[in-house]
């Protein structure tokens, strides 16, 4: 019956790509994360991938990249991609805390991705940078300074949303603050990585369903489930 009523059929529609929500996870995998913290982080990231995959809208919209600082120095563990066909990476703890280098790697990846989107007509929302650490950075000081400057400027120009999250009592709050003008760093409650990533996947889902002019409100109540103010 519909065939007779419809002036246009599904196979005639233009196939535009889904609007993406780019999310950079910049994660501390240094030696101090060894033991329960790294195990919980692995479980949390894995759960994040599953939760996104289970969400009919977010699974096409989420565009995830992971940079780590720790064992192996600062590196891009996974360049931007949809999670549909990907397995969550497995992290092991070790090494130093070259946070600045890792943030710069993540920001470079983000710039490249935005260029790819522009060239292929893919719309995207304001990207997010999740920065998680349990210590203080001890990589190259100039790299750290450059990372802070780039991030803070992008936040100020409304080109990036940053979530600075400290793990445990040794996380360097002052450095995290510098990355995020306007948004106070949060402290992860215990090792509630799972709750955090659950909240993150829900926020990605909500954002992917917003339309032009709509202010994307983060679920602040939801944050209480995993984070607290320092």
């Amino acid at each position, binding site marked *: 019956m*519909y065939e007779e*009523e*419809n*002036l*246009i*059929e*599904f196979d*005639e*529609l*233009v196939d*535009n*790509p889904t*609007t993406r929500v780019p999310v950079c996870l910049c994660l501390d995998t240094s030696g101090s994360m060894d033991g329960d913290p790294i195990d919980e982080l692995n479980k949390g990231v894995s759960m994040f991938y599953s939760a996104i995959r289970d969400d009919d*809208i977010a699974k096409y919209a989420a565009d995830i990249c992971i940079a780590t600082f720790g064992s192996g120095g600062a590196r891009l563990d996974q360049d931007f991609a949809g999670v549909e066909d990907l397995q969550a990476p497995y992290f092991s703890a070790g090494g130093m805390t070259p946070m600045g280098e890792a943030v710069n790697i993540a920001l470079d990846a983000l710039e490249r991705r935005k260029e790819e989107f522009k060239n*292929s*007509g*893919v*719309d*995207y*929302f*304001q990207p997010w940078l999740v920065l998680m650490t349990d210590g203080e950075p001890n990589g190259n000081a100039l790299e750290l300074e450059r990372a802070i400057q780039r991030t803070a400027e992008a936040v100020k120009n409304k*080109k990036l949303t940053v979530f600075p999250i400290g793990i445990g009592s040794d996380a360097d709050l002052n450095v995290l603050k510098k990355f995020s003008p306007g948004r106070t760093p949060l402290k992860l409650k215990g090792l509630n990585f799972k709750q955090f990533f659950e909240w993150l996947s829900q926020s990605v889902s909500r954002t992917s*369903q*917003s*339309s*032009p*002019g*709509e*202010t*994307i409100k983060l679920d602040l109540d939801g944050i209480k489930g995993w984070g607290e103010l320092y």
Partner: protein
Amino acid sequence: MWKSVSCEVQGLGHIRNNVLCQDKTLCLENNGVNVIVLADGAGSARLSHLGAVYVVETVSEFLSNNFNGLFECSDSVEVKVSILGSVRAKLREKSDELGCAISDLASTLLFVAVSDNRYIIGHIGDGVIGYLDGITLRVASFPNNGEFANETVFITSINADNAFNLFKGKVQSIIGFVIMSDGTEASLYHKKTGSLSKTIVRLIGKTFTYEKKVMESQLIATFENVIRQKTQDDCSIAILSRGNIGYDLINSMSYIEKYDSFKITTRPKDSVTRNRIKWYLKILRCINTEPKSIDEIFQQIGGKKQRLQRSINALLNSGCIQEKKGRYSFIG
């Protein structure tokens, strides 16, 4: 004679969250002016569903009452200021009545007004405005988004004057206009190439041939069953048409217009080109009333079958005919 239709349907996201449809459209014929207007209320503005209604009503009335003056005015800034001024005055009045801020009534604006072979097109924000020129579908005004998907300009934005795309001109070979919101854009506008779906040609043709009531009910059914399934957003469209693609339209074109429309690459004055155009017209006349297979066309007009196949391929490439299940017909 111009005919117009429009429709808007509530988006799936809004149905789920119990939010009213914020897209509004209006077709108006007044003082010999045909107007189609569309306003997409801002998701962030709490009364934008009302704002969008005020915008389409005010703009259509203003354009139909002032078309000649607006068209003749050589200063585009003055035209923009007068159109925006009328809308903002209405929104201010309504915001006072409702006890809300004017920004609570924010929306985009897209319109086409036509009178005596002249048109005025205006656009603020996202959505697309297109037109069918002869047999060629073109974009008049592209979506104006910011870097991010949820950014655009609204009629109440500070930079609305600068972001106001305004065009005027002679209708000449244009046979239809279309305006659509960003929800509809997802299905009928190719973002990468910045081009409109060919199905728009059919909609323009049917707007002219169908009774308004019939066309509008089919349009609503199509938008509910097909178009809105591709997005979470509200979807709307308005179409203004004075014909459809057929033999009569193409035959009435000048020689050069036919040459351009058929996308012929040999020199226009060559006898080969002249013969080719005559041959193409013969084929088009043959399929004018009903779709035909190549054998049926061959039986009717003769010639060499290989040449006929080549010519049909060329006409398919030119975009004026289509093939469905081995039968050829005009794309409308």
